[in-house]
């Protein structure tokens, strides 16, 4: 990349919005770069949420987020077919616990019907308990929406980004945009120049898909007219013992501020409860709290009394990038070439594939020429999930490649071949491997597989093992041992 080289599009942010846009643009003959600030794509907002492709009943069709919701739901299903990430159409049960809520949920169902969401049904209490026998006996009725799915958003976004990369998009991680040159007064057609700590990126168009930091990016471009207010959600994953306690996504009747605390099966079969909804000041605040746990479990038990915080195996918190308009902010700005895709809060993950198509249209309107590539490949080899294969399939794979018989993560049954495939697809940190393959996500939380994963990373990246990180800069894992005599330490005595 010489000083004079000008890219067609630089996408700022490798979350669901940026990755689906990168993939949508990859079908055209364009020079596209995606810059991700963190160590791996999907490691911001997209990593830590409930993992739901929403039924599309909930958001009002008067909002942009509401209009993109159902087309986005369909888009994820297509991507699932093409790329092979896990996606399970478990459906949604929207529960009413009193008569007032019964009226409210029917209003939501009618809104879904108007938006073209197929298959919704009002259910009686009996019908609801028949389908979900572990729900509270207080249930007065429910709305069934078969369009809702669960998936691992990080896995999906990583594979979408990988598909973009296979079709020619350049993906650069640990490249936070820290400056954007001011406009050149005498040359309106001059490219935008974005600076990251190690490089300058000249581009005709920049798409601001920076999630929590979208307002900061707009500020750098000189066109900030909104603020991102991070809204924290704590989530709790429960032991496999509780698998099957609910088989669909259980929604409470929503309040004006939140969809409420959900109880849902994950695509891996475990049960997740959450989220909370708390506005915070700090864009890095992903702490969980005693108070958050108490609130989540108190709410969840109103729906599913059998659930208890004693069964927690993992907990995390994510931040929703809520704009002060409470809707998505999408479109060109006064800065020529700088296009916003900001404030992508729930159902932003669901809407992402549709938002990507909308952004392609916007770029075309702004003058980007779109010529389809002859060799664009919408599919990619689906990652092998050894643990989910039949014994015969496992035997055949292992006979072809013994690395499929070398276990790395014993809790989740992840093989060396799967780890190597993830490395080939761009994983370069321990968490990058974990979120692509599940290695380290199980009962022992990496006690066994941390070391072999670090060894495979060091070998693949061709670095000393001390340079392998948990999730990029600053997250070092081990130190070189110093050859020294037995220490006389200050704590001795």
């Amino acid at each position: 990349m010489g000083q004079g080289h000008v890219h067609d599009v630089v996408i700022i942010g490798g979350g669901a919005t940026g990755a689906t846009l990168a993939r949508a643009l990859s079908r055209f003959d364009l020079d596209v770069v995606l810059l991700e600030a963190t160590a791996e794509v999907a490691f911001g907002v997209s990593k830590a949420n409930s993992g739901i492709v929403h039924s599309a009943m909930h958001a009002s069709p008067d909002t942009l987020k509401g209009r993109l919701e159902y087309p986005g739901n369909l888009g994820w299903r297509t991507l699932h077919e093409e790329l092979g990430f896990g996606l399970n159409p478990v459906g949604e049960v929207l529960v009413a616990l009193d008569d007032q809520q019964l009226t409210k949920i029917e209003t939501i169902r009618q809104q879904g019907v108007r938006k073209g969401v197929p298959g919704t049904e009002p259910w009686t209490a009996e019908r609801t308990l028949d389908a979900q026998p572990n729900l509270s006996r207080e249930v007065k009725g429910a709305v069934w929406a078969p369009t809702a799915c669960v998936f691992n958003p990080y896995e999906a976004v990583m594979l979408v980004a990988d598909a973009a990369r296979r079709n020619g998009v350049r993906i650069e991680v640990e490249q936070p945009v820290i400056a954007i040159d001011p406009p050149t007064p005498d040359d309106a057609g001059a490219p935008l120049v974005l600076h990251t700590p190690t490089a300058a990126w000249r581009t005709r168009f920049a798409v601001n898909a920076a999630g929590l930091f979208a307002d900061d990016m707009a500020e750098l471009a000189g066109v900030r007219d909104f603020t991102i207010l991070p809204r924290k959600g704590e989530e709790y994953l429960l032991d496999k013992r509780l698998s099957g306690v609910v088989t669909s996504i259980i929604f409470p009747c929503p309040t004006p501020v939140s969809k409420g605390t959900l109880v849902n099966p994950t695509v891996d079969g475990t049960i997740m409860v959450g989220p909370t909804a708390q506005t915070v000041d700090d864009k890095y605040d992903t702490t969980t709290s005693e108070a958050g746990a108490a609130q989540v479990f108190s709410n969840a038990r109103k729906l599913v009394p059998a659930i208890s915080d004693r069964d927690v195996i993992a907990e995390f918190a994510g931040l929703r990038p809520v704009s002060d308009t409470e809707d998505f902010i999408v479109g060109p700005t006064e800065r020529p070439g700088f296009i916003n895709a900001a404030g992508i809060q729930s159902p932003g993950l669901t809407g992402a594939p549709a938002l990507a198509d909308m952004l392609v249209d916007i770029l075309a309107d702004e003058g980007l020429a779109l010529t389809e590539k002859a060799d664009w490949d919408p599919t990619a080899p689906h990652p092998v999930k050894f643990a989910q294969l039949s014994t015969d399939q496992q035997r055949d794979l292992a006979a072809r490649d013994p690395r499929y018989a070398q276990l790395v993560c014993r809790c989740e049954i992840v093989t060396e071949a799967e780890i190597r495939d993830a490395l080939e697809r761009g994983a370069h940190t321990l968490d990058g491997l974990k979120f692509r393959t599940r290695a380290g996500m199980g009962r022992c939380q990496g006690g066994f597989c941390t070391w072999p994963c670090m060894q495979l990373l060091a070998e693949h990246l061709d670095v000393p093992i001390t340079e392998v990180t948990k999730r990029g800069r600053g997250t070092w894992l081990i130190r070189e041992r110093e050859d020294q005599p037995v220490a006389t330490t200050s704590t001795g005595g």
Partner: protein
Amino acid sequence: MPVTAATRHLDDRYQVTIVGAGPAGLAAAVAAREQGAERILLVDRDAEPGGILRQCIHSGFGLQAFSEDVTGPEYAHRFVERVLERDVDVLTDAYVTDVSRDLRVKLMSPSTGVTSVETGGVVLSTGARERTRAQIRIPGERPAGVMTAGLAQKMVNLHGYLPGQRVVILGSGDIGLIMARRLILEGVEVLGVFELLPHPSGLGRNVVQCLDDFGIPLHLSTTVIDIHGHDRVERVTVAPVDEERRPLTDQAWDIPCDTVLLSVGLIPDGELARQLHLSLDQRTGGPVVTSTYETSLPGVFSAGNNLHINDLADWVSQEANVAGAAAADVALGRVRARQDVAVTPGTNVRYVVPHTLSTDLTQTVSFRVKEPIYGDTILRVGEAHRRKVRAVVPAEMVTIKLGPKVLESFAGETLRVDAIPAAAADDLAAAGDDEQ
């Protein structure tokens, strides 16, 4: 340790298959062979047999088994030699993914691929796993630098790297105590060991030899209530706890550090036990077993930390001797000993293993107390056995040998195991047998 003997060809059928080649599996293999089994398969997930002993480079092993104080690797090595001398098939880098109820063992390894073998008896000797941060629910950020003490031990002792430079240890389990000393010797700053309970979780000798001798502070009734640091651990907040173990946050203080090691307990690794639907003891987390360590599924045995958490590897080997021999007996079609006496935890006893005893055999009853008693203590197994000891603490397992003679008059009964202060025992004796 140089001993590797990766078996490349497996038989279709073994008399005894042993899952896990740590102290339990190695001893079980030797015992099964001595008992007459000829085709024995010993499977381990690591590249070499020995299990966790390989990373336990400190001494303190073998006092029971060899009447000699040796290190973990030496202890393992002696057993590995015995195993290899006895023509046992040792398959390393291998993992047993499933055991069916008709005793087909499904396993995978690069040398054999995905395959299965039939077996006459199975010994589950898969050991334990460490409790993690997720299980003790420390809120806060999730930076790099929080790991179990056992993983740190592996990094330091097997691979020669340090987990960090300024270390706080949460939990006073034995691995944590051992690692406190180990890291001090490597020039790492160990800022303290914090224990939620009012007494240490590890052995008394480890508190003295690993902490006291190196001036490392042990803070009892104190715990970590928050972890700070976005990328790498930067500091922890610790606080004393009240009698209900609730943190007294007004007395909390911060400790700058870059690493938190967790030594907060071990859990029997019960995945195969669960898959086999074995009856489990909620108190131990391991299977319910007979006096020969046979589980609720005939032909399946459990020994070592897979059965309950032992304090010494030597006890593990002794258990596995019994289990391995009994597995061979079952595979060879010999008659089992009667199981005609039940044992159950009584006063101040957390659990008892095994769950039934035989009036045909001499057997060992192992148990742990709930609360420490620092003074003369009466240990009782029903009316069959009564013994006075100086003290009992939860960290130290208690074992009692019981033979046919003491048991024979109790056939058909359930014996309660109690550990009570001697004074209280006298009062009880005076009051008669109301408690029964």
